[in-house]
């Protein structure tokens, strides 16, 4: 297992109550959240759409993890994630997405980010708490790494 470290989530990149007109709108909102915290440059947003067209980033549990293509790593300034919740749901190629975790990572950083995120989402209690959290601080707390072998 990879070593654990806090997921790089800036509280300013958390939205509890977002709405989107569709999948691409939700992805662009994630991209803008990453842009606003200085994690990526503008071309990353197109790369996120391109990635999604190649293959869906839906991972189950009502969660999608949009991120850019490998070719867009040059426009990532630092590793970061954002969390946008869509309580009304977004149609994601037939799946209903209520939580988007946007990801920006340099080098191989995404493997660790995805692994940590997946381990959190596999815990049904945590996944539910993430969907229902009423405070930004709670979302940030829920995305702290799970201890090894608990």
């Amino acid at each position, binding site marked *: *297992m*990879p070593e654990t470290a806090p997921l790089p989530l800036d509280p300013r990149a958390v939205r509890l109550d977002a709405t989107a007109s569709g999948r691409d709108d939700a992805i662009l909102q994630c991209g803008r959240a990453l842009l606003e915290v200085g994690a990526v440059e503008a071309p990353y947003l197109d*790369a996120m759409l*391109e*990635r999604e067209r*190649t*293959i*869906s*980033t839906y*991972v*189950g*549990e009502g969660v999608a*993890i949009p*991120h*850019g*293509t*490998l*070719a*867009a790593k040059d426009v990532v300034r630092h590793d970061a994630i954002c969390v946008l919740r869509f309580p009304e749901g977004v149609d994601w190629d037939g799946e209903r997405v209520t939580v988007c975790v946007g990801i920006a990572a340099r080098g*191989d950083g*995404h*493997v*660790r980010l*995805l*692994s940590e*995120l*997946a*381990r959190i*989402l*596999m815990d049904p209690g945590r996944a539910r708490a993430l969907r229902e959290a009423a405070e930004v601080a709670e979302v940030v707390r829920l995305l702290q790494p799970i201890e090894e072998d608990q």
Partner: protein
Amino acid sequence: MPERTVTVASRAGLHARPAKLFVQAAAAQEVPVRIRVGDGRPVPATSMLAVLALGVVRGTQVTLDAEGPGAEAALDSLAGLLARDLDAEEISGG
């Protein structure tokens, strides 16, 4: 139980895209297939989250196992997939 140990060839490891292709291929098999890293706990190869959680990078050795009719063919097929650089097969380079 039949097993195959294979070194993951995809440039970026088993993350979103190669992981999805692998999970889809696993779901298309007639027998349940599990995947593990080293002595780790085997997880269903059909679970995207479980596969992502393994944190597999290029060069990681993973072991697949399956039991039942068609297990050997399923393992050969999936091991063959992991041994290919699935990122290189993406035209748009991501």
